């Protein structure tokens, strides 16, 4: 059986990639994908620990996360469409109108 530590390592790698994606990329869609990546990294960690502990709750939480993430994507894409309609771009640096 693959040890849990490897799953966690994979999860950490996926999460870091997600963070870097959010910090570095400017395309809003890629930003969303990065966020999804971070969410799923967390999901992976949850499932791995749940398996090690023989605990069903960790797996249940993952389902909640997936459904919330789906809702979040729906709202987020709607926002994205709205931004695109007014700015003709999906570059998040172009919508920095809250600059102090």
């Amino acid at each position, binding site marked *: 059986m693959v040890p849990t530590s490897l799953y966690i390592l994979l999860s950490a790698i996926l999460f870091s990639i997600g963070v870097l994606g*959010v*910090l*570095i990329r400017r395309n809003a869609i890629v*930003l969303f994908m990065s966020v999804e990546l971070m969410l799923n990294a967390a999901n992976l960690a949850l499932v791995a620990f749940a398996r090690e502990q023989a605990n069903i709750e960790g797996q249940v939480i993952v389902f909640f996360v997936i459904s919330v993430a789906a809702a979040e994507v729906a709202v987020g894409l709607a926002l994205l469409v709205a931004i695109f309609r007014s700015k003709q771009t999906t570059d*998040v640096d172009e*919508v*920095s109108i809250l*600059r*102090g």
Partner: protein
Amino acid sequence: MLEFIWIIPLLPLIGFLVNTFAIRREREAGLVATGAVAGSFLFAVIMFFLLAALPVEERQVNVVLWEWINTGGFRVPFGLLFDPLSAVMILLVTGVGSLIHVYSIGYMHGDARPVRYFAYLNLFIFMMLILVMADNMLLLFLGWEGVGLCSFLLIGHWFDRSRVPPNLVPTNAAVKAFVVNRIGDAAILLAMAAIFSQFGSLNFFNVELGDTTLPGFIENAHTIAGKTFSIPGQTFFVTTGISFLLLIGVTGKSAQIPLFVWLPDAMAGPTPVSALIHAATMVTAGVYLIARTHEIFSPTTLNWVMWIGALTALIAGTASVAQWDIKRVLAYSTVSQLGFMIAAAGMGAFAVAIFHLLTHGVFKALLFLGSGSLIHGTHETQDMRKMGGLGKYMPITFATYIVGALALAGVFPLEGFWSKDEIIATAWSHGHFVIFAMLVIASLTTAFYMGRQIAIIFFGQQRDKSYHAHESGWLMTGPLLILMIGTVVGGVINLPGTHWLIDWLHPVMAEEAEPFNTTLAVITGVLAVVVVLASWWYYMRNAAKIKVGGKDPLYHYLGDIWEGMAEAWYFNEIYNATIARNYRRLSVFLARTFDPQGIDDMVNGVGRVLGRAASGVRTSQTGYVRTYAFVFLIGVIIVIGYLVLGL
């Protein structure tokens, strides 16, 4: 039946409310206002006879309508007092008031704001009735301030005119009257505080209120006799302190030295207003106040009262001689006659002061309404130099004005003779010979300026022929005729043999009529006639020397003295130079310098410091999502690091 005295002030109040909220047309406004006051007068007459029917010692009705203020120890009833003193005041206010309302219908015809005018006139009558019917100082003060407000509103009735003769700005005159009166009113407030601290109540007489009795300070004035208070270096009787504060209030409202300067300017208002407020009723409120609270006036204060009154009578009398404006002559004359009343009160002859108040209220209203009729008939001419020879065009005004003028001059047997003679006789019999001399001279100036005025206005040739003089309508001459009858027979109320008024007021004043000094009366009576005739003759003879815009014939002999008289001995100039100008300078400094540079800079400075501090921090708000995410990440790392490593 006497408990219904509240109907007397209620009717003018209803008139005011109806005129304010319901009526839009001039004719209806005049009818409603006149009806309200006339009804109030008729009711007052009935109440007067009911009061007279009571035994002498029961002639005091104190009706508490409701408890007005109740804050623990400070309790004030809304109570009305009906006794011999307030009864005669009510009759004067509503009686003369009704006639002036009727006259106003004619005089204000075609005015821009007649409804407002009549509403204010009704409000004034209401406030004046509250003033004379109040059973405590606070309610009296409500009326006192109310009439002041109405005076302000009515002086400024023509606020849209930039100038009215004689070169007055109505709004400025109104503000001046209001501000000068504030000085006196502040003193009244202090007097009320002092009275409350001494007696625990502001009531004049003991009043049952619920389960307690409020002590009346007039009834209990003897309890603080001999009590003293000290300011560094001086010790005074408490009664002196209280009464002196009241006296300051009186000098404001009754236009005495040093606060009389507002009354001549108050002539900027419509003439019926001058007749009602600034001759017959409001300005006599001070005399009423002294008469009402005379128990608390100490001999020291009464001495001051006497001197202030006599000085005012003299100074205003001389000022009146040198005026060209028909209303200004009467205004200074009013100040002078008020001085007579105040002087009489200062000598302890309160009933005599009230007698002169009543007769003056009638004949001075007659004179003011007569001058209004002249102004009306000569198309807004007020400068006497532009008049002349008007007797043949305006016979009724002429006849009534002559009667009023002779009454004012003190010619036998008109009412002014009786009341003024009694004041002068009191000064003589009380041994105040300097006061006596001042009052005699003042009364001679009265005779002189009335003779002068009659000669200049009614006799000779019309000097300014640009207008066609005509007699006024019946609405105006009717009240003149009624007031003329009152002027002729008014002295009856207190003839030397009967002295009804002094006996009537005896329950309030406890004052006995003095024996009639026939010699003195004959001398003053003859002197009055002689001076009137002399001045009339002088101005008839020198009629040719009076030119429009020119100098008085006497100016040739008196020169600077005449100038001083014309300017009322420069009181206005002195106040301007010392108080008004410095105060304005202070105001300008505060408005132009202190406010923008002191207050504004302080407030703006706080804002600027905060703004500058904020501009350093605001650069962190880049608006880039990744910046926020990065900060967020660092925060998470720190928190997790702390939790994991247990730092």
